[in-house]
C-alpha cells in the first residue's frame, strides 16, 4: 500500500520533469514556486521514506535499503533545490542523481533475496533495481549535458516507468503465472 502512495508521488515528479522537458527550463522557471516543485517533492519523498523505514520494514536488510533510499533521495532533491535556488553553483551537484539511481538500484537488488519468478514482488524488486542501474546512465549524461531536452525527457521517462512498476506491486501475487508455494497464498 505504501508502495502505491510512493508510486503516485514518484509519478508526479516524473510528470513535472516531462512538462519541464517539453516547455524548456526558461518557461518552467517563470513562476518561482514551480522551479522548486519537483526538487522539493523529491526531497519530501526522501523525508517520508524515514517513517517507512521505521514503521513498515520487518528486517535489518529492509531497513538498510529504505534508509539508503531516504538518504540519497534527500541528497539529490536537496542538491537540486540548492541548484535552482542558486545557492549551489557547481553543475557537479547534478551527479547526485546518478549516485541516487545506482544506490537505489543496488539496494533494490541486494535486499531482494528471492529469485525473479518467486512472486510478483520479487520480480518487481529485480526489475526496478535493474531499471535504476541502467537508467542511471540518463542522469549521468544529463549532468554532462544539462540543456539537452531529449535527455530531460528520458530522465522523466525513467522516473515514470519506475512509478508504473511500483503501481503493479501487490502483497502476494503471481508473475507471468509463476508463484512459489513458499510465498504463501495470493492476496491483494
Amino acid at each position, binding site marked *: 500500500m505504501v508502495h502505491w502512495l510512493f508510486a*503516485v508521488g514518484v509519478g508526479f515528479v516524473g*510528470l513535472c520533469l516531462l512538462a519541464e522537458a517539453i516547455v524548456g527550463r526558461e518557461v518552467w522557471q517563470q513562476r518561482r514556486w514551480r522551479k522548486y516543485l519537483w526538487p522539493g517533492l523529491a526531497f519530501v519523498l526522501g523525508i517520508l521514506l524515514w517513517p517507512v523505514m521505521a514503521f513498515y520494514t520487518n528486517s535489518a536488510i529492509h531497513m538498510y535499503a529504505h534508509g539508503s533510499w531516504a538518504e540519497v533521495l534527500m541528497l539529490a532533491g536537496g542538491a537540486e533545490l540548492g541548484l535552482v535556488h542558486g545557492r549551489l553553483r557547481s553543475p557537479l551537484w547534478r551527479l547526485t542523481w546518478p549516485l541516487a539511481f545506482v544506490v537505489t538500484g543496488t539496494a533494490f537488488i541486494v535486499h531482494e533475496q528471492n529469485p525473479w519468478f518467486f512472486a510478483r514482488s520479487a520480480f518487481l524488486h529485480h526489475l526496478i533495481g535493474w531499471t535504476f542501474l541502467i537508467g542511471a546512465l540518463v542522469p549521468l549524461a544529463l549532468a554532462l549535458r544539462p540543456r539537452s531536452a531529449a535527455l530531460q525527457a528520458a530522465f522523466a521517462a525513467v522516473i515514470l516507468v519506475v512509478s508504473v512498476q511500483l503501481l503493479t506491486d501487490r502483497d502476494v501475487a503471481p508473475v507471468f503465472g509463476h508463484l512459489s508455494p513458499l510465498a504463501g497464498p495470493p492476496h491483494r
Partner: protein
Amino acid sequence: MNTTYASRAAAERRNHRAQAISLLGPLVSAAGVVWAILQPYRVTLLHPRGQGFWWLAVEPPLLVVLAGVVFALVVARPLLADLERHRATTR
C-alpha cells in the same frame, strides 16, 4: 522570407508543446479510469465491507486519477498561460 518561415516553425513547435502539456493530465486520469474498469477489485470503495482504513484510503486507480487532475489544474494550467505569454513576448 527565411525569417518568416523560421518564426512560423517556432510558433508551430510551441503550439505542439502546449498541446502536449494540456494532454498530460487528462491522459494520466484516463489511465486511472481504464485501470479501475479493468481491475475493479482494486477499488475497495466498491466493496468496502471488512476493509481497514488504509485499504479504503489508498485506492491506486483513484490515486492515479487524482494525480492527473491535480497536475492538470495546479501545474499544467499556469504553465500553459506562461507558455502563451512567452510566445507573445518572443513574437
